[in-house]
Each structure stands twice: as structure tokens, then as C-alpha cells.
């Protein structure tokens, strides 16, 4: 199942350099968000945006640990219609999300946590897309555009 939000559109996204952090332990969560912060800062994002990106990375990395045990976070710079942005891709080969629509509702959780992870993370970013199905893992792509 696929769900997305934001402006979307058919414009091409050209990666201009990326970094990949394997997520296996709680220390990797810190490493991933710190790395994402540097990528965003390097590409001209300001304090509030950088913090929102770092927080989103933290939540996505946390979800990988919680639901899939391991996976990876890829942070890359993207461009659409000359507008630069930072894309965060969280990828795992875990059990997948049976009902993405349900997982995106505030308050829903299967791991007895706050259940705010995905909808909250979507609010931190400009675009948010989940591709997941049971048994096939999960790929979440979240983008923030430089304003």
C-alpha cells in the first residue's frame, strides 16, 4: 500500500550527494540524526528546519528499531524545479505495515508506544510517503524543501 502527502508532482528529483547510516542500535539513532543535521546545515537550512529534520530522522530510525530490528536511513539532497531540499529515506525489511492508513492516524500504535511516530513525523516534513506491505518491509520517504 502506498500513501503520500504534500505537493508531489512529476518534477524530477536529482540527488546531489547522499549519506547512508545503518540502524541497528540506539547509538545509530543518534548518529543518523546528527548526520542528517550536518547535511541540512551544509545545504543552507536554518535552525528550526534543521531541528525538525533531525527530529524526523530520530523518529524514523526509532521506528526501524522498534518494528524491524534493523534497517537504514539515507539522507540526501534533492532538487525539484531548482528548489533544493533534503530527503530522508528510512528503509527496512521488517514485517511491513498492514494498514498504512491506520498507522498514519494520531494515537495508533502496535508497539504500545505513544503512537505518534508517523503522523507526527509527517508534520515535521513537507512531503511524506510510505511504501509498505506485510512481509515486504517498509520504505518511508520524507522531504523538506529549502524555503
Amino acid at each position, binding site marked *: 500500500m502506498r500513501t503520500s502527502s504534500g505537493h508531489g508532482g512529476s518534477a524530477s528529483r536529482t540527488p546531489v550527494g547522499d549519506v547512508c547510516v545503518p540502524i541497528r542500535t540506539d547509538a545509530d539513532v*543518534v548518529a543518523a540524526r*546528527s548526520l542528517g543535521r550536518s547535511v541540512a546545515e551544509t545545504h543552507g537550512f536554518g535552525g528550526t528546519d534543521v531541528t525538525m529534520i533531525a*527530529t524526523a530522522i530520530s523518529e524514523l530510525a526509532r521506528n526501524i528499531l522498534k518494528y524491524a530490528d534493523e534497517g537504514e536511513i539515507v539522507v540526501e539532497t534533492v532538487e525539484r524545479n531548482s528548489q533544493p531540499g533534503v530527503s530522508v529515506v528510512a528503509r527496512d525489511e521488517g514485517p511491513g505495515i498492514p494498514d498504512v492508513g491506520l498507522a498514519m492516524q494520531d494515537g495508533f500504535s502496535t508497539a504500545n508506544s*505513544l503512537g*505518534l511516530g508517523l503522523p507526527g513525523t509527517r*508534520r515535521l516534513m513537507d512531503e511524506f510517503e510510505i511504501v509498505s506491505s506485510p512481509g515486504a518491509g517498509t520504505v518511508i520517504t520524507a522531504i523538506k524543501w529549502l524555503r
Partner: protein
Amino acid sequence: MPVPILKQGDCLIASIQAALTDADLLDLRDQLSERVGRHRSRGVIVDVTVLDVLDSFASRMLRTIAEMMRLRGAETVIVGIQPEVAFSMVQLGLSLDGVTTVLDLEEGLAHLERSRRERVAYARG
């Protein structure tokens, strides 16, 4: 990296120096719980000024610490949440309901001092 915990009068000050892993946060919770008993502390300040991210786990742990300290008879004050961190927490839907938060360490110490005076005044009737 363990968080240094300083004792000042009947207060403990946990002065976070760098980004914390989940394990560090759990360790901080346990250390504070033990030290509050050992020093008979009445107030605990957790200084998060250097933290550039407070995500769902960190927020939950701060609430847990505050509640545990309350059960142990001490009042917790979280100090130093940066403006962009506060903004991200709100966007994410996190709250520190029921936890006292003030601007910085100075305000935190002043808050605990006021609480101490109120306790003394109450004890004297």
C-alpha cells in the same frame, strides 16, 4: 556518555553535556532515582540546554524521571529546552504535561528555592 549529576544543597543538577542515546537516558533515570534517596534531595534539575533533539523517547523519559522523582519526594524541573526544539516537539505532538519546565538553570534554581521556602513556611504553620 553518562550525565554528570551535581549536588547543590538539597538539589541535584543533571547537566547533560552531549547528545544522549536511549541507554544514556535510562541510566540517567536510574542514577537520579538512586541519588535522590542517597542525598535525600528535594529538588532535581535536568538541564537539556545542549540537546538539539527531544524526540518521543527522550520526552517520555523526562516525564518518567519527573514522575519517579515525585514518588521519591523530590520535585523535578526541566530547564533549557531550546526554541527550535520546543517547536519540533509541538509539531511532533509531544508534550511534557505535568512536568515543570523553565527557561534556564537560573530560573530552575529560583523555582526550587521558592518551593523550599513554601515547604518551610508550611511546616512552621
